[in-house]
Each structure stands twice: as structure tokens, then as C-alpha cells.
């Protein structure tokens, strides 16, 4: 599938943009801070419903002299093998009590002219986004890695999305009850119901994530070996916080944790606390791998994500590669280009034309981005 038309209003640094995009490779050129990454982020937002990690929804809205515009809008036409879909995604600032613009934003989604729940955006356009910040997947907080899992799986698994939403609801109810039990200095009255739901939903979420991690191990390890050279191996492990080897989220574990959970007023086990660990030659990549190896690890994970999404959805996702060439030597650049699926829409940004290998350049259309404007070349 690919995005054949993109229209932006007040999204990041784009006041207004209308673009026809090619089905194949597109090279996005421009100096730094002109909007190349923002263009990719618009497509990421269509795929995931939000921007890059750490970005709040309100930060997607363009500001003029420090004052935010009322909303940002992305419109797109997506062409898949069997259908064409018109998407509209609006991020609007929530009004405050007195009717003025607030600091938080909410989403509105329209699919083929009909208002839809935000979750129904997922799966309309599948995309994999790679940026130099992805190195945080290794050294950053566990939340980064859970987000990586959730963004990937949510694009192709509606049930997973629903389970995540339900799980969040159960989690906040259970945490509220734990805090209340702490205040009242009570035993575990009323927890059984929420425990049961937590285990049921949490178990399904963990099982789905583990399947995805299995796929990462198959194709990610292969990609890494190819990029890093024979003899080096990548392994990804899903870490269940506090759980035994057998996986899942057994009720007795919650029972064992109960006193501590009530003391802290917080649910301490479950998929909202789980983590991923990336191992290079059996050693944690975050601590032991070189900077260069770490780059290849995250790149391998993204390539594996791409293959998995393509396999599950039956057609290749859009590949959004932000500033990928500047960090790689020429050999690795060629290896990445060789792994790009033929005929897939691939957007690659670069500040320096000279870093773009001829093998990519020769097939690619070129888009120049300058101060919030974009023009096709040739």
C-alpha cells in the first residue's frame, strides 16, 4: 500500500502543503530544519495516530510567533491493492473552561468522509519509521520499547488495540482501588474482579507481543547478520517483569505482590511494565555494543518490523527512513537499499546529496523541501 496524495494544514512547520507522492522510492532533500522529518512524521501519524516518541499531540500543531494555530490537519489518499481510502486526521487543541485554546490536543478521524473512532485509523496506512533517535530503543526507558511493540502490532491487529485500551481502563480502576485499600488499611476486598481482568487482558497482550518478538528474532537476526557481517548475532528477548519463566501473568503472582502493591498504590506487574532486551552475541546491546553496532541493531529491528507488517497485511508497508545514510558507511548503505522491498513506497530524507548512493538515487523521484514548502524535481 502507499500514500498517493498528502495534504497538510498547520502540521508542524507546514502552513499548507499539497503533494502527489510516487508509488516507489522518493528522495526527500533539503537542508536541516526545513521540514523533511516533519513530512515523514505526517505519514507516521496517519499510520500510528500520533507523532514520534516523546511528542505530545499538541506539539504536532504549527505555531506562529509562539502561538499555536487552532488545529493541524492531515488529509491523504491511500492506495492498497484492493481499495483506495481517503483519510483525514485532525489534531485540535481542547478548549479551556472559558472557551480559549488549551494546552492539550485531541484527535478527530474521518475515513472516506465518515467520522470514525481514532482507533479505526490504524491499519489504513501501514508504515515503518526509522530515525537516528531510534538508538533510544536500546538505551532509553522501557516505555520506548513497549511503544515500539505497540505501534507495530496495532497497525495490523484490531483486537490488540482493543485489548490495550481495555487494559488501560482496568489498570486505572485497579490502581485507584489499591490506593483506596492503602488509605483504609484494608485487606484485598474487591480486587479479585480487577485481578481477573488484568490477567485475562494482560495475558493476551503478552502472548501477541511474544509472537511479534518471535518474528523479530527470525528476520531481525538475519538482517543483523547480513549488515554486521557473519559471526555476529542479534537476539531479542521479551522480559516479563516479576514473572516466572513460563510466561503469562498468573494470579498467584498478583497474590504474592498484593501487600507491596497496596503499599505503593500501584499495579507492579503486567504488560505495562514489561520490557524488551536486545542482545548482541549474548550481551545486552545497550551496555556492550559499540555505537555502530547499536545503529545496526535498531535498523535490523526496523527491517524486521517492515517484513512482519508486510507478511501480516499481505502488502508492504510504507518505509519512512529519516536521515538514514548519514550514519552508515557506504557498504551498509548498499546493504539497506538491497533489503528495501521492490515496488514499495520508500521515503528517504537526506541533507547531503552526496551521501545518497546511486543505487537508490537512480530509481527515486526527488522532492526538495525548503522552509515548509516542497517541490517535486524533474
Amino acid at each position: 500500500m502507499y500514500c498517493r496524495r498528502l495534504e497538510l494544514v498547520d502540521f508542524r512547520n507546514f502552513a499548507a502543503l499539497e503533494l502527489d507522492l510516487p508509488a516507489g522510492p522518493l528522495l526527500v532533500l533539503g537542508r536541516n530544519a526545513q521540514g523533511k522529518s516533519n513530512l515523514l512524521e505526517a505519514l507516521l501519524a496517519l499510520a500510528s495516530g500520533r507523532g514520534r516518541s516523546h511528542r505530545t499531540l499538541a506539539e504536532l500543531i504549527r505555531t506562529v510567533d509562539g502561538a499555536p494555530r487552532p488545529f493541524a490537519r492531515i488529509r491523504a489518499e491511500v492506495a492498497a491493492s484492493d481499495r483506495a481510502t481517503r483519510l483525514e486526521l485532525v489534531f485540535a487543541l481542547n478548549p479551556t473552561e472559558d472557551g480559549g485554546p488549551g494546552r492539550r490536543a485531541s484527535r478527530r478521524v474521518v475515513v472516506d468522509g465518515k467520522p470514525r473512532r481514532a482507533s479505526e485509523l490504524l491499519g489504513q496506512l501501514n508504515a515503518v519509521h526509522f530515525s537516528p533517535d531510534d538508538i533510544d530503543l536500546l538505551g532509553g526507558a522501557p516505555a520506548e520499547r513497549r511503544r515500539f511493540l505497540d505501534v507495530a502490532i496495532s497497525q495490523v491487529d484490531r483486537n490488540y488495540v482493543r485489548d490495550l485500551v481495555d487494559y488501560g481502563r482496568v489498570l486505572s480502576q485497579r490502581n485507584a482501588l489499591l490506593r483506596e485499600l492503602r488509605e483504609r488499611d484494608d485487606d484485598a476486598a474487591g480486587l479479585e474482579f480487577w485481578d481477573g481482568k488484568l490477567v485475562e487482558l494482560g495475558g493476551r497482550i503478552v502472548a501477541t507481543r511474544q509472537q511479534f518478538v518471535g518474528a523479530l528474532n527470525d528476520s531481525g537476526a538475519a538482517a543483523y547478520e547480513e549488515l554486521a557481517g557473519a559471526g555476529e548475532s542479534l537476539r531479542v528477548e521479551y522480559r516479563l517483569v516479576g514473572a516466572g519463566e513460563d510466561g503469562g501473568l498468573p494470579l498467584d503472582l498478583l497474590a504474592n505482590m498484593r501487600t507491596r502493591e497496596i503499599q505503593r498504590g500501584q499495579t507492579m506487574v503486567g504488560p505495562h511494565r514489561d520490557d524488551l532486551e536486545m542482545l548482541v552475541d549474548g550481551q545486552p546491546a545497550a551496555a556492550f555494543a559499540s555505537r555502530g553496532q547499536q545503529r545496526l541493531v535498531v535498523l535490523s529491528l526496523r527491517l524486521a518490523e517492515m517484513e512482519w507488517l508486510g507478511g501480516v497485511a499481505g502488502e508492504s508497508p510504507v518505509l519512512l527512513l529519516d536521515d538514514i545514510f548519514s550514519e552508515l558507511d557506504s557498504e551498509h548503505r548498499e546493504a539497506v537499499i538491497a533489503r528495501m522491498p521492490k515496488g514499495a513506497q520508500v521515503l528517504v530524507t537526506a541533507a547531503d546529496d552526496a551521501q545518497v548512493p546511486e543505487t537508490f538515487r537512480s530509481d527515486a523521484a526527488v522532492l526538495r523541501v525548503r522552509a515548509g514548502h516542497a517541490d517535486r524535481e524533474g
Partner: protein
Amino acid sequence: MIDGVPGPIGRLIEELGKLPTIGPKTASRLAFFLLKSPPEQVASLAAALAALNQGIVQCSKCFNYADRDPCPYCTDEERDVHTICAIEDALDLLAIERSGGYNGRYHVLEGAISPLEGIGPDDLRLNELVARVKDEGITEVVVATNATFEGDATALEIGRLLDGTGVRLTRLARGLATGGDLEYVDPATIAQALEGRREF
């Protein structure tokens, strides 16, 4: 007093703004709408508001609101006196009555268990329900709480409290909406509908 608005209008805006789902903008719009409405229409609304608390009481048996206590649903001997339908609030009673599919007694729980909102079992009319089941010779309790986690938690608590009383406990079936097209129904609903399938 709201800036630039004559006293009575400002007061009305303030009062309307206290209602649920009504923000300051809607409150102003409603106030000015009323200002431009025929006087008799406004008087009729005012009379309805003034009469609201007069002659309306809460039924001491089922906690529904009615013009007398006990309420008509609790005294009507034509109704099935051995069945109680437990509901979250009085509006649910109207919805079930409109369906015409039920003809027993009711019991308004006045909410559902929700730790986030500070509502626990003790804040609901659960003890009163248990007492009624024992005192009134009830043979079936139809639990008609909402199909939410909070409604499920409440249903589970009712089951726990009535365990051992021998009363038959039932829950409303979940599944397909009338007129619904299977193709567009979400998987969770289909799964529940399959679970609740029956012979025909």
C-alpha cells in the same frame, strides 16, 4: 455576576452552567434562547422546574423516583412479585420498561463499582437488595448492569453477596444489535454473541 450581562441573565447562565454536559458557551446560548422565547414557554419551564422536587419521592424499597412511596412498580400486584431486576440507575428502568420484555420488580443500585470515582460496594444499594431477596421470597435476580468493566464488577459482587441464598441469578445477554449487519460488528461482540448462542 458575569461581566457585561444584566444580572438576571448572568444568574441564569450561572445556574445552567452547573448542569452536567453544559459548558459556559452552551449555558449562554440556552439563556439567550429562553430570553427570546415566548413568555408562556419560559413560564412553563419555570413551573416544571419548581414542581420537580414537590411530590417526587424516592421509593424506599427499590430507590426509583416516583410520586409516592412505595412506587407503582413495587405495589403493582399484576407484576411478577418473585423476580427483581437490578439496574444501575433509574433511567435504566425506563429503558427496560419501554422494551416491554420484563414484568417484575426493580432495584436501583444507584451506580456501579468504580474505584476511580471512589464508588465501592458500600456506596451502592447492595445490602438492601440482599435484604429484599430474603424478605420478599425472590426466586430470580436479573442483573441488568451495563456491559462495562464497572457493570461486570458490580454483577460479580451481587453474585458473591447472594451466593448460598438459592436465588437464581441471571444476566442480560450480550451480542448483536437488532438490525445489525454481522460484517460490521466488532469481534468482541461476536465472540460474546457466540458464547450466549441458544437452540432454536
